[in-house]
């Protein structure tokens, strides 16, 4: 691994992108109780660094795929915010014309090819997109985001094996947030299971890093992307992180007792947004007085997106029948 080489500009952009995701998610949490976003939402607050660090290492026309918890992935890859908000509100202007909701996100124009809520199911689809690329002269790198829970699905191994077999330009991004819904790793995986080692044993290079440190993520991703782009094949990176809010929905759920207050507090002090802000301020890559306007700018963008979403029309009833088939 080469030394960190993130310019001040890049760093500021990554900070901005993380903050933006955080503020979007918090806005969703605030608005959710209005009961106008009538779809399940899986917020990624606490996990912003993974999405931003990885997407910073991708080119705009590289591909990315997500899962049920992909607001951050979509936004970090450059997905349109207005169409995203409209999708959550079920509007005709949504990125799926309202048909997908929070759990189906897509913005083909920036290479975000899709997120779906069946755990693990985009893994092979992402590998397939990379495989499809080998038939043309312009192979792109494909990143796929998934939780540590998804590595329990057999299709995880199937995807690794084929990516290795065909030496495909894939970056497998495993966000290990320790839980699948309310179930800890202890009830799902043996203590000595090692996800990067599973990748390696199946022929895929692997590394592991701090998923709350956006620069560390970026570095791992950059190397993996470079390897992929250079014909070196797939890499899995495991990023350790933590979800702050409830599995699904706008609230905190520490009252449920499935995780300890200590654990939660420890991870909260490792907030990817705050720790990176402190580092940038420290380094002088970011100035304190720029912060307010940065936040204000983002909030304004979110205001606009929410307004767009709320004011957009619902799809017309006959849209129900559209797009079942192409022809």
């Amino acid at each position, binding site marked *: 691994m080469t030394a960190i080489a993130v310019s001040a500009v890049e760093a500021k952009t990554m900070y901005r992108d993380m903050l933006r995701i955080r503020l979007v998610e918090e806005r969703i949490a605030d608005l*959710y109780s209005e*009961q106008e976003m*009538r*779809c*399940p*939402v899986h917020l990624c607050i606490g996990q912003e660094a993974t999405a931003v660090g990885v997407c910073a290492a991708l080119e705009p026309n590289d591909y990315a795929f997500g899962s049920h918890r992909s607001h951050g992935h979509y936004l970090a890859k450059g997905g349109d915010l207005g169409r995203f908000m409209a999708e959550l509100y*079920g*509007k005709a202007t*949504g990125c*799926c014309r*309202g*048909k*997908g*909701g*929070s*759990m*189906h996100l897509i913005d083909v124009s920036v290479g975000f090819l899709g997120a*779906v*809520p*069946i*755990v*693990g199911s985009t893994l092979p689809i992402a590998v397939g997109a990379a495989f499809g690329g080998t038939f043309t002269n312009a192979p792109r790198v494909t990143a796929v985001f998934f939780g540590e*829970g*998804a590595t*329990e*699905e*057999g299709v995880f191994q199937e995807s690794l094996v084929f990516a290795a077999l065909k030496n495909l330009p894939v970056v497998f991004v495993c966000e290990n947030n320790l839980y*699948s*819904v*309310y*179930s800890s790793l202890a*009830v*799902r*995986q043996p203590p000595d299971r090692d996800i990067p080692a599973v990748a390696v044993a199946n022929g895929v290079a692997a590394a592991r890093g701090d998923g709350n440190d956006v620069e560390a993520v970026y570095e791992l991703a950059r190397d993996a992307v470079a390897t992929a782009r250079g014909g070196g094949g797939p890499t899995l990176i495991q990023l350790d992180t933590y979800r702050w809010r409830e599995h*699904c*929905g*706008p609230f905190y759920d520490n009252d*449920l*007792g*499935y995780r300890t207050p200590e654990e939660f507090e420890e991870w909260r002090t490792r907030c990817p947004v705050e720790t990176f802000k402190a580092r940038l301020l420290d380094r002088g890559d970011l100035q304190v007085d720029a912060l307010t306007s940065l936040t204000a700018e983002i909030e304004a963008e979110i205001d606009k997106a929410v307004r767009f979403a709320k004011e957009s029309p*619902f*799809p017309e*009833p006959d*849209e*129900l*029948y559209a797009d*079942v088939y192409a022809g």
Partner: protein
Amino acid sequence: MPAEAPAARQLKFNEALHEALDLALAADERVYLLGLGVPDPKGIFGTTSGLVDRFGSHRVLDMPTAENGMTGIAIGSALVGMRPVMVHQRIDFATLAIEQIVNQAAKWRYAFGGEHSVPIVIRLIVGRGWGQGPQHSQSLQSWFAHIPGLKVVMPVTPYDAKGLMLAAIEDDDPVIFIEHRWLHQLHGVVPEGHYVTPIGPVRRLREGADVTIAATSYMAVEALRAADVLARGGVEADVLAVTTLRPLDASGIIDSVRSTGRLVVADTSWRSSGFGAELVARVSEEAHGALRAAPRRLGTVETPVPTTPALAQFSYPRVPDLVRAVAEVVETDAEPLLALLDPPPHHLDVPDSTFTGPF
């Protein structure tokens, strides 16, 4: 159906299931529960809440997100004498486990000449509303009902939720137990203690002489609502809940049609190649002469279910659709009947106003 207790106790559907599971775990140490989230604080929509405290984490188990493998594991344990009750929070997740369910569980006994049976219960939950969307709202009962070796039940009332769960657990064959998410909160009379609802006969929910409505799962609830309105308009519907889809005992439906001469079928899934087709076909084959009008089939619109409530509200047949279908088969004008309807609730994507998402 055993006589109801004099001071009829009311339980919700999910509470009735909980009681059945609790009784089964207490009565038979071979029974264990398995599934993502079974011991978690939400307890599968309340159906397993607290059972881990009573019976321990070796009998009330969480599992890896590995639906196919875990189904095989449940089957294997059944071969050596256990009686697993497995659950998937959405039928859509069980599409990963089809190989084990359909090739192995359903065929093990037959293929091996009766050496072993596979006493396993697989609970599959049908999602609906609040933006469940294309991948969390399927209702694939017709698939399982197609497979010899499986038994398939879909209770409607809390009474049958409990009775059929106990019957399923005590049954030596693999039973697919399909629950509709919108039934979980409905109330009904549920006797205390052990009883079983036999797997097999259809359940008459309301008697009527003018038209037979045969419905599955939540559509039977809608059918009862429609029957109320129809009765006010002078049309008496015989409402039958098809609670056992395989092996299908259609005699109750056929007898009813022989007397009403009219049939409307309402299923929670798509019409095409759906379970409703089986009901219409059976009646048509066995009681063609009795049918005085073309039968009608209701089901979800032939598209994946969209997420936005603006469209999903049109995906599902509702009381007015049932009323219209009945009007057609009894050859009367629908308009006066429809005029009797209460205005629909503002939001059609929730079972009732207590439901505020996200799941």
